[in-house]
């Protein structure tokens, strides 16, 4: 996959005549029907948009962050708009892993679309226990670790900003599951590359990048921050250049698939992320304004492939990456602007 990303050349399974092969093989038997997924927290449990979206047209669904115990989440307000983006601080409201399994897994089992459960925790043990309970449940196609959470064991330091902690939780979870394991990177770091490498080495099957940027907004009277939780996560088109940069960096230092997230609102955005090495893309915030976007992107991607005479979308991957010369770089963040 890594070399494929860098060069666009890969063993392309012969596609059914005429049809474009959009499938994405994430390993461990998880093959997405197409590379357009919906991002965790923006598509609930897959059922909420059913009036307007046929989920089986999607490449995959990442469900809302799931924790061991139920969480009521953060005080309100929880969302607001910002220039070209939005802030959210839901605080991982969810009924807890057992309730999630009870309520949704049978529905998911009936779907063609793979459902990937986004898992969050406050300790390595939390993550491990949640994943253990998800293991082997019909309808659960994979795990996405949301490691942008405070590691209580490490004084609240986020797993995601510390290569060692990130690798630690990845390895621990890897040990207890054969489910495809995706780990989601945070953009709030000085240099993502050592972290990405550590997670890959710890046994992740794929990386998803990126989670939200940390930001705040103020209440109208400016007596306090607007969001009940003070801090929120910035998402939407505003962060796309940052997400694109991170995927560009990560794709050059790991050999596992990278799934891009951050500000996708059009096919051009999808093609951009593929070009910097993403094997698939998740759509998040844009769904709120345009619920049918992800499904449209699938057919638009197919059209582009047809128009370019491609049998698969894979040649679109990695076209903007420098052809990798030798070993992945281990250099620190270069001077930028």
């Amino acid at each position, binding site marked *: 996959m890594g070399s494929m990303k860098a060069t666009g050349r890969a063993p392309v399974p012969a596609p059914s005549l005429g049809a474009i092969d959009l499938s994405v093989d994430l390993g461990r038997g998880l093959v997405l029907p197409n590379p357009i997924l919906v991002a965790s*927290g*923006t*598509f*609930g449990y897959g059922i*909420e*948009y059913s*009036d*307007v979206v046929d989920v089986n047209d999607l490449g995959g669904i990442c469900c*809302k962050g799931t924790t061991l115990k139920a969480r*009521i*989440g953060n*005080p*309100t*307000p*929880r*969302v*607001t*708009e*910002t*220039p*070209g*983006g*939005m802030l*959210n601080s*839901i605080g991982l*409201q969810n009924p807890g892993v057992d309730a999630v399994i009870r309520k949704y897994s049978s529905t998911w089992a009936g779907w063609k679309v793979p459902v990937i459960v986004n898992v969050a925790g406050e300790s390595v043990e939390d993550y491990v226990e949640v994943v253990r309970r998800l293991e082997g449940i019909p309808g659960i196609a994979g795990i996405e670790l949301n490691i942008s959470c405070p590691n209580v064991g490490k004084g609240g330091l986020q797993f995601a900003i510390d290569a060692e902690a990130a690798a630690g939780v990845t390895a621990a979870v890897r040990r207890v599951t054969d489910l495809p394991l995706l780990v989601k990177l945070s953009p709030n770091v000085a240099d993502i590359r050592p972290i990405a490498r550590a997670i890959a080495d710890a046994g992740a099957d794929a990386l998803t990048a990126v989670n939200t940027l940390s930001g705040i907004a103020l209440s109208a009277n400016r007596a306090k921050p607007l969001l*009940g939780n003070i801090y929120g996560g910035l998402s*939407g*088109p505003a962060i796309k250049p940052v997400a694109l940069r991170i995927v560009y960096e990560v794709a050059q230092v790991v050999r596992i698939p990278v799934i891009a997230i951050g500000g996708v609102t059009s096919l051009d955005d999808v093609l951009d992320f593929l070009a910097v090495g993403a094997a698939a893309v998740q759509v998040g*915030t844009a*769904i*709120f*304004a*345009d*619920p*049918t976007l992800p499904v449209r992107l699938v057919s638009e991607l197919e059209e582009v492939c047809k128009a370019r005479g491609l049998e698969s979308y894979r040649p679109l991957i990695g076209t903007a990456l420098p052809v990798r010369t030798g070993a992945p770089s281990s250099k620190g963040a270069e001077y930028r602007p």
Partner: protein
Amino acid sequence: MRLVGAELLNAREILPGQWLQTYHAPALATGSRAGQFVHVKTGDLSGFVLRRPFSINTADVASGTITIHFRTVGRGTEWFTHLRAGDTIDMLGPLGRPFEVDPRSQHLLLIAGGLGMAGVRALADEAIRDGRQVTLLFGAASARDVYPTSLLPDEVEYVVATDDGSMGHHGFVTELVARYESWADQAFACGPEPMLQALARLAATRRARMGVASLGRKRGAGKAAPKGSSTARRKAFLQVSMEQRMGCAVGACLGCVVMGSSGTPQRVCREGPVFASDEIEWEGSWGR
């Protein structure tokens, strides 16, 4: 719930900074009930990321039109004022759960604060259509902000309160409630949260204070329907329409919750925007 292209037929500034827009959207006019709302997309080159939620102010099946009534409070609402007749915008709706009127309720008390008028306005039409009597208590800062009688059905008894006394009762609209409390079979309110909270307090103590005419009591305390169910709401004396900042407006993002008396957050876009007043945790600081 559907995605519909709604064509702007007509837009008027009915009060300073308050607009009434009529859209041709048959699917919404037909399929919606009083209390529901639409989530409206701004234009492609507008640079906005989120839709904007607006109550369905009125719906007219015959002409296949709905109206929204909004105040320009920021860039998004300002954007909508620049639309011209003939422009088509994308509406997601109808969304949320409607007001539930008990079939036996004859006297409906509607209470609106400011833009809350848009939240209860459609219920007035529905109730009149169903042959019920409607008294609408409306509170505004001052006379210049008072919703024009001309825009209400003649059958509605319209009582106004202004904070500065420039029209009607001098004070809060909530102070008018006492007069109508015993007359009313049910009450339906939309407006600023402090107003709704005050009304909820009244409703909570109502049975104790008045002993009479509580639908709940009429049918005996025994067979109470589960909280939040349409049946339970239909029996509630007070139903309130809540507001919260929204992302998806379909229940997916959990952005719009208010704390429920049950201790679990309730989604304004899905369990609401209408709630029985006893479903909400009014006290306590969570999210305030």
